[in-house]
């Protein structure tokens, strides 16, 4: 750990921007009148 900063989670968002989405992952309806998802709690179907 550095003196001022600790990495909790290294980001992977931009690293996946090179590939086209396979679109196999779960639908993430964000309507609060169903059970709204954030995409952040979705799982990649191919991982």
């Amino acid at each position, binding site marked *: 750990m550095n003196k*001022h900063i600790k990495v909790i*989670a290294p980001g992977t*968002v*931009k690293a996946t921007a090179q590939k086209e989405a396979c*679109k196999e992952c*779960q639908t993430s*309806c964000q309507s609060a009148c169903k059970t709204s998802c954030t995409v952040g709690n979705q799982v990649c179907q191919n991982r």
Partner: protein
Amino acid sequence: MHVFKFGGKTLALDPITGTLLEVDDLAGEVLKLWHHLTPAEITAALSDRYSVCDLTEALSEVEELAAAGLLDAIMPPEPVPTDASVGQIKALCLHVAHDCNLRCRYCFAGTGDFGYERTIMDTATGRAAIDFLLRSSGPRRNLEVDFFGGEPLLNFPVVRDIVAYGEEQAAKLGKVIRFTLTTNATLLNDAVIEFLNDKQMAVVLSLDGREAVNDRMRPLADGAGSYSAVSQAVREFVERRSGKNYYVRGTYTAHNLDFATDVMHLYNLGLRELSIEPVVGGAGESYTLTQDHLAALCREYERLADFYLAKRDEGDPFNFFHFNMATYGGPCFGKRVSGCGAGCDYLAVTPAGDLYPCHQFVGQQEFAMGTVFAGVTAPSLVNEFSRANLYRKPECLRCFAKFFCSGGCHAHAYHSNGTILQPDALHCELQKKRIEIALGISAFRSVQ
């Protein structure tokens, strides 16, 4: 960089890469300026409060992270979908019943009828919906059908037929349909439970929490409260599927701004998979949430987070849907940019087989997209929705939470602001608060 506090820690999120850091006050100040000023300018800006030596140290750590690709200020270019992939359907919300045996006061579906006559879907239409999904899904293998309403179990025979038909037809094509069902739990008898468990169907069960809270907003058709029967049915159902593959989902309103107490109530009923959501719509009603409630609601999410962490520390944790967050991993960039997929990947089907972008647009003729028999006959709507990604939403581009939220609900946006490209402001603020807490919880998980 978005710098915020959670549980006594100072955390920093790089919105572009998704990197999450724990920082001291000095590093937090440096990171706030990092994407906007040069190191020399940052030193000059902060030298009245910190020593040059400390600033140099902190800047060096930040530069190290940037060199490793963990910090970045530049958005990747917008992914352009191929023509062939636009309009390939992945999921359907099947309204098998535009009818309900409850009369929930906040129901966006007009207590089940969506503003039209009370009706149910017939078998032929249900099967046609499956055929439409399979022929419209292109190369996608994993498909989804959500049984919705109204109350879908008012039409259980058709649900059962659609599942059997869907499994059979999908298997012929080497595809899989994942079925889910959202129910008020009033019609969960032995036959239904056995079927849902046998099919391993994910089930969302509606219950708002404390008896008085639930019964104020969720009366039966005869006006009596639903809590007693529903809470008993939910507990029995969860027990009979060994506590797996379900969510109990509540709605909070202006009448229960202390909604964390309702989550605690559900927890004390023995339920461990929980979600509670802000009420939608109802402008001018006494239950409607407004910006005036925002500060209280944010404090309540913090109180809920304290309860969540306390139960985890006691060794009897629960899942709260909005606090689950994959900070390392999670979906790819394309998914994070495109959001829910309503109107392009995902459509709602009425009992008559009419198609709409999602359940919240049902009955609005300007959003009619075709039928399961004729297919999509409004390609302009498909294009409009498929292009409604983060890059078309200026407010989202400025938001730290964009890659965790992906732009919010199109329907809320449209109903609040008249365009699917401008998200509902209150729901944005609530979403940001929940994302901060989810990230904070993940930080505590990593440390321990």
